[in-house]
């Protein structure tokens, strides 16, 4: 599944187009300048703002919810990364955290929640069950939520430690920062080596 988030560059591009339409002047120089410097800086700033103010929607079903609570709790305090305020409506959230086993019965509901979220949106697969089905390889469990929705970050662990979650969140922030103009994100293995 192609995972290209709509680039903020195009937002600013729209602004330029409107400017061109309003003034009726060709803005070739300005456009070139803008694309090369102004807009990339603007896009960087937008992405910077986005990465430090995630609004997660915790789709909590199972065991991983215990560690999710812990991550949000006093010791690990996900608020230090700007992702503390859970929005319990998908329309206000931009980070879908799928926490816990997704069974065939709840899969349509997850899909629907994802569809209701506005762009740009990211999906974190929290724990083994969501990443691949984990220990449950049987008739009832979806073998990885990436079979129904795109996933941007996989956090292995059953359940993952809060440290692993925070590390994953930092990685996701890096990814969000780089995500501009639909460019591909360099793949990385869990150990840090390039893929």
């Amino acid at each position, binding site marked *: 599944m192609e995972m290209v988030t709509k680039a903020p560059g195009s937002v600013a591009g729209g602004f330029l187009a409107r400017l061109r339409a309003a003034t009726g002047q060709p803005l070739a120089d300005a456009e070139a300048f803008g694309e090369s410097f102004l807009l990339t800086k603007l896009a960087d700033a937008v992405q910077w703002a986005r990465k430090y103010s995630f609004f997660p929607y915790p*789709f*909590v*079903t*199972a*065991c991983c*919810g*215990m*560690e999710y*609570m*812990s991550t949000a*709790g*006093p*010791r690990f305090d996900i608020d230090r990364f700007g992702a503390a305020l*859970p929005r*319990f409506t998908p329309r206000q959230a931009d980070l879908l955290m799928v926490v*816990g*086993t997704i*069974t*065939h*019965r*709840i*899969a*349509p*509901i997850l*899909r*629907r*929640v994802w*569809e209701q979220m506005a762009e740009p949106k990211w999906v974190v697969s929290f724990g083994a*069950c969501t990443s691949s089905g984990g*220990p*449950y*390889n*049987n*008739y*009832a*469990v*979806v*073998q990885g939520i990436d*079979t*129904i*929705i795109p996933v941007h970050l996989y956090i292995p662990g*059953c*359940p993952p*430690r809060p440290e692993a979650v925070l590390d994953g969140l930092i990685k996701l922030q890096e990814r969000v920062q780089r995500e501009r103009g639909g460019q591909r994100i360099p793949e990385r293995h869990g150990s840090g080596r390039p893929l």
Partner: protein
Amino acid sequence: MPNNDRLLSIIRGRCAEAVIRTDDYRGDATVVIRPERLLEIARVLRDDRELAFDLLLDVTCVDYLGQQPRFELVYHFYSTRHRHRLRLKARVPESDPTIDSLVPLWVGANWLERETYDMYGICFRGHPDLRRIYLYEEFEGHPLRKDYPKEKRQPLIGPGSKGTYKPRPPEIPHAHRVEGMLGAELMRVQLGPSHPATHGTVRIVLDLDGETIVNADVEIGYLHRGFEKECESGFYYQAIPYTDRLNYSSAILCNVGYCMAVEKLFGVEVPLRGQFVRVIGGEISRIADHLLCIGATALELNAFTPFLYALEARELAWDLINALCGARVTSNFVRIGGVSADLPEGFAELCQQNFKRILELVADAEGMLLENPVFRARMEGVSIMSPERLIAYGVTGPLLRAAGVDLDLRRAEPYLIYDQLDFDVPLGSQGDNLDRFLVRLTELRQSIRIVEQCLRLIPPGPVDVDDPALRLPPKGRVFNRMEDMINQFKLVTEGPKPPPGEVYFAIESANGELGYYLVSDGTGKPYKCRARTPSFSNTQPLAEMVRGRLLADIVPTFDMINMIGGECDR
């Protein structure tokens, strides 16, 4: 230990012609009956003064593929008055898998029979509402039948798959449907399955008249992940991590129950030190579970600060579990024939230090909540249910004790070393949500007391059974002795092989009676591994508890039931 011979002779005397066979294996009294006489015998079991089996713990089925008749229905009963247990079995053929429903006698049989229908396709004559409970209507086949392949998946029904997905309007099949008071149309509200005020995936379909609940239908099964099928497909020791994920907020208790059930199959007992370590681990788990329940209740009643205190206290409890077994949530601590590791060095001091802080934090949380008018208004006098009704539903644990029934298996049938310990069993007086909350608070403090006693009394010695048939030899011996190396290979590749037979063993988990029913056919894999989980039975009365009350009362009631998804949906 109750006298099973006497019990069985009474039953044989009361209904001689309906009983095919009775036996007493490893302390479990079993009666095999003719299926057509089930209802009649069940009535005798319930109403006879000497038997008085008022608690229907479990209904399940075993699929003996290739035998005639194929399906064996298994019922487990418990008597809260005489404290004895009974297993009732009846066989039905594959051609006509039908048996009488026990719902007229025990209202709690409703969900249990629905589950058996869902998993095995057994039809219950006279059941008011026989539909699937864990799986969805479109699912074909019955997954726990032995001829259903474990990995056979069915197409996803929903917007993510092919085919069109139409959310079906849920129907509420209730006998007690009340028409709206003002003659107005009832409003249908769906709570869940992903709702912030329910920590667990459950859908409650409500019919509201204004804000009053007229009808409620609790739909579970969103987290059904095939616990039994997974256990049956692996060796006995491989099921231990899956038991962690039953009640994930008190995983060690689930481990203890399972391993003791397997040990009962083998007929072995763990050395004394091992039993102490199990009790210590289990009670710390119970502390963590109660802390979660208290904290989540506070959170969902909009008190955020006590939630943070409870979480901080739970972190401290988890630090102890982490030091014990290296994991926080899914501990995988207990082994068949022992525990994975002895207590680490300095554990007693760590306990002392953390318990001190936990008690401070609990006192803070309590101080913020108990006098708070909002909290009191939402807890006091809410969702009262009579003890008789709770027992008919099969409810156990703090929920039942809050209604004043003295049923704690640690006291009623002491297992491990609980008979050597000194602790109080808290009971409630009114049975409302406030009592349930207070019972949990008191139990938490008692658990700390138990652990402190254990740490004082713990004797030196081995923690594991030295028997290569069920416990891996210590690593040091595996490296040096050929014999132990062979034992290690044998045990890992073939699994521990208990003698053929069946047992039921129950412990008092944080939410009530957690029982395991195991059937061994002599191989290294369990033929049937059934968990009788408290959350399942405890969630069932929710609909009745909230009927006639306000919408807002669902949240505290649901919290005090403390439904744990993994345990309820298995």
